[in-house]
């Protein structure tokens, strides 16, 4: 079954990896809407379930049902666990994990009706390892992988897939401070580009990836291998 009419929604789609994903999906011929706290086609903080519901209603009105969802919105609040304020823990979990849950629930409403859907969760190479100073981020991104696999099993028989990508160190504003230290550890010998993550996401969103479900696709230059 080919993709029914609808749109692709990319959260955090106004900069970094999210922007590259939005541009790539648009280039692939999809109608793309971006959701962000500021500057997106629709505005919402994904940690705010009410705002997410309103934003999805607006997207449906302006762009059509959401049949492709890329949960990319993420924040960092780094610090050693022993000194991490509870608020920093919660902010990262609320945005990076609960935000994906909230958006997925909304998107599934449309996908279930269409009997077709693609969800891609942007996790991180750190999800399957450890990264001192990022207990909150690692917990959220690891949680996202378990969530991905579960939604994949729950929705598989309705033509809906849910997969994850785990980007390594990608050149974005978010990694500007840490990139140099990590570069030496990457087998590829360089940092990744946002477009390289977008390429993997576009593959998972495609019709031909219908049999790829619950998978975690690493885009990390071998860092997590």
């Amino acid at each position, binding site marked *: 079954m080919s993709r029914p009419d609808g749109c692709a929604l990319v959260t955090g789609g106004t900069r970094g990896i999210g922007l590259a994903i939005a541009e790539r999906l648009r280039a692939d011929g999809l109608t793309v809407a971006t959701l962000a706290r500021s500057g997106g086609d629709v505005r919402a903080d994904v940690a705010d379930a009410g705002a997410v519901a309103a934003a999805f209603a607006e997207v449906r009105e302006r762009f059509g049902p959401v049949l492709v969802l890329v949960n990319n919105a993420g924040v960092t609040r780094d610090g050693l666990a022993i000194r991490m304020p509870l608020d920093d823990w919660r902010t990262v979990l609320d945005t990076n994990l609960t935000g994906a849950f909230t958006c997925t629930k909304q998107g599934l409403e449309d996908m*279930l009706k269409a009997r077709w859907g693609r969800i891609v969760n942007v996790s991180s190479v750190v999800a399957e390892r450890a990264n001192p100073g990022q207990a909150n981020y690692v917990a959220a991104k690891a949680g996202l992988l378990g969530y991905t696999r579960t939604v994949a099993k*729950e*929705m598989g*028989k*309705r033509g809906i897939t849910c997969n994850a990508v785990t980007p390594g160190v990608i050149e974005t504003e978010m990694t500007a401070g840490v990139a140099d230290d990590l570069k030496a550890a990457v087998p590829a010998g360089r940092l990744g580009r946002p477009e390289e993550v977008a390429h993997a996401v576009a593959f998972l969103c495609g019709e031909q990836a219908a049999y790829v479900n619950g998978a975690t696709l690493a885009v990390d230059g071998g860092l997590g291998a």
Partner: protein
Amino acid sequence: MSTTDQTDVLQTIRDELAAIKVPGAQEATPETTWADLDVDSLDLVELVKALEDRYEVQIADGELKKIESVGDAIALVESLRS
């Protein structure tokens, strides 16, 4: 709710289950259980959504867990509409 309404709910249930490709959906009677039809939790969620939309009722998750047959679903819609 009248008998006519109950028949209407029954047919809605049959149609919705048929739409999600449940074998034997159109032969379902109030005595038919979800187990008989091999209806799983996702099928049930979709069925409940359809009933909520058509009859303008809200079915709580707690109620959803209690219904085990077509007749249970008809009775639940009936109680919520009265």
